């Protein structure tokens, strides 16, 4: 605890990303009121890679994920220490434009949550800047098509983009949410158990999308599904009670974990 109370500046030397890294958390600690949830996390998100975060329920995975796009601040009792950088910028710096940051670090939630609008408008909402005059639908149509294609949804919806997004199946809704996130042109996409509400077919479809996304963005995905973590990720981090117990290349974490807790967890012993 004592060492973590160092001022932010002390971490500045560590808080610089290498070219192959897109985000880096250093000594990241989160408390909700008096309850400490993350105990100083040091973790790197590699560029154009998929990082899986695994760990038992309540260990702080969602809290960590929401730290990366500052959605954490919506919780009034949340307090934090440490640094998180995105391309060498401290994302918690006072000069950081919150809305720009959240476009650079997008998020897909556990429950598919399209807006109660048409498919087109869901994507268009993400594209449109807060300009006085909104661009015409025709002007953004190519971009809407592009992101729907990248999210693997285009062929299923191209015939009727004005359909209500909520009439789509759960898996389609989640892919729409991925498309919507892509429309903001992010560098990193955070996914919090994106398949937990979906059937195996839809899950496979989304995993395929995630693997394809890797060519332009970096992905951090929280999952309770060990097979999924192995299938989609390049690196894996194992959280336990607010600590990052294990971190490394996915194959290594699953086949030769350094800690006993990780070995037990990936073998399905607890969680």
């Amino acid at each position: 605890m004592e060492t973590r109370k160092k001022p932010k500046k002390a971490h500045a030397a560590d808080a610089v990303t290498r070219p192959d890294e897109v985000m880096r958390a250093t000594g990241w600690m989160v408390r909700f009121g008096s309850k400490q949830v993350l105990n100083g996390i040091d973790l790197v998100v590699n560029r154009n890679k998929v990082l899986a975060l695994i760990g038992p329920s309540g260990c702080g995975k969602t809290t960590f994920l929401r730290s990366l796009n500052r959605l954490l601040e919506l919780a009034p009792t949340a307090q934090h220490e440490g640094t998180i950088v995105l391309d060498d910028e401290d994302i918690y710096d006072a000069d950081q434009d919150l809305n720009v940051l959240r476009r650079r670090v997008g998020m897909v939630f556990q429950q598919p949550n399209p807006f109660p609008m048409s498919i087109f408008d869901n994507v268009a909402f993400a594209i449109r800047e807060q300009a006085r005059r909104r661009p015409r639908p025709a002007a953004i149509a190519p971009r809407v098509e592009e992101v729907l294609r990248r999210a693997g949804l285009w062929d299923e919806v191209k015939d009727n983009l004005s359909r209500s997004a909520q009439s789509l199946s759960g898996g389609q809704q989640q892919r729409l949410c991925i498309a919507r996130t892509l429309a903001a042109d992010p560098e990193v996409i955070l996914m919090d158990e994106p398949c937990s509400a979906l059937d195996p077919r839809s899950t496979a479809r989304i995993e395929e999308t995630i693997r394809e996304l890797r060519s332009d963005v970096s992905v951090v995905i929280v999952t309770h599904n060990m097979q999924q973590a192995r299938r989609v990720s390049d690196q894996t981090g194992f959280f336990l009670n607010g600590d990052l117990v294990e971190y490394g290349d996915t194959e290594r974490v699953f086949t030769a974990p350094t800690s006993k807790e990780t070995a037990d967890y990936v073998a399905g012993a607890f969680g």
Partner: protein
Amino acid sequence: MLLAWATGLALCGTIATMVGWLAYNGIGNVSWDFLTTSPAPGSLQSGVSGGILDPLVGSLFVVVIGIAFAFPLGVGTAIFLTEYRRPSWFARIVDTTVDMIFGVPSVVFAMFGLAVFGASYLTFLSGEVSTSGQATAVSFIVSGLMLALIAFPPIVRATESAIRTVPNHQREAAYALGKGKLTTIRRIVVPGARPGIITGVMLGVGRIVGDTAIAIVLLGGTVLEPMAHGWWHPDQITNTLRGSGSTLTTYILYASPAGEGNTAGKAYGAALVLMVMILVLNGIVRKVSGVRLKKGSSR
């Protein structure tokens, strides 16, 4: 259970009887002519003659003026109470104030309006009393402004509860796309609350249309005379709105045996028109809020 059922039946019976009785007494007086001709000046001997065009238009005027003010104020207040609530002591004061406005009888607002809008520098909202230089405080504008107050609370409350039904994950999704709080409110929260807002506005319209006290005091209910010839003319409309007039409720009061006109038939006719208007409004409210219920349960 049986008691509840009986109460419901009794209520339905009362309403049905009332509507039936109004229809029975009023229907003979309601005709196209009745709706489209101005009332003729009444006297104790001849009673009121003519139709209800001017009171109908008068009701429309006060509804438009009242809602024009109550709608933005009410929706804005609801947004403050749900999405901001800061500082919290202020939010609590606003909350209590809305409740109080809800509870104050409209005749109190009428007296208050008379006092406030009587100020000599407010003559542009009504007319000038030549002897004192004070404002008359009797006009469509003044009564519309005070009627906005009684339409305001239901708009606030209906909007508030509709906003609370907009799920939090929708707001989070907007924030996660880099949208600010204002954009999120404008593009996600308010559209999501639209059915509730419409319900609130309808309830507000119903309260304005049905109010009598404010219209009598601040619109000059004793005046059963038609509006000046050519009141609708663009050159005249400001004068018309600054002038006195009548609404359906004041017409009913004065045409009835209780008032000056002593022509019960006309009063029944106008009451029937008013009743039908309110029933139609209620139907719209039910339809719109029903839409919301269905949408909510399908999630």
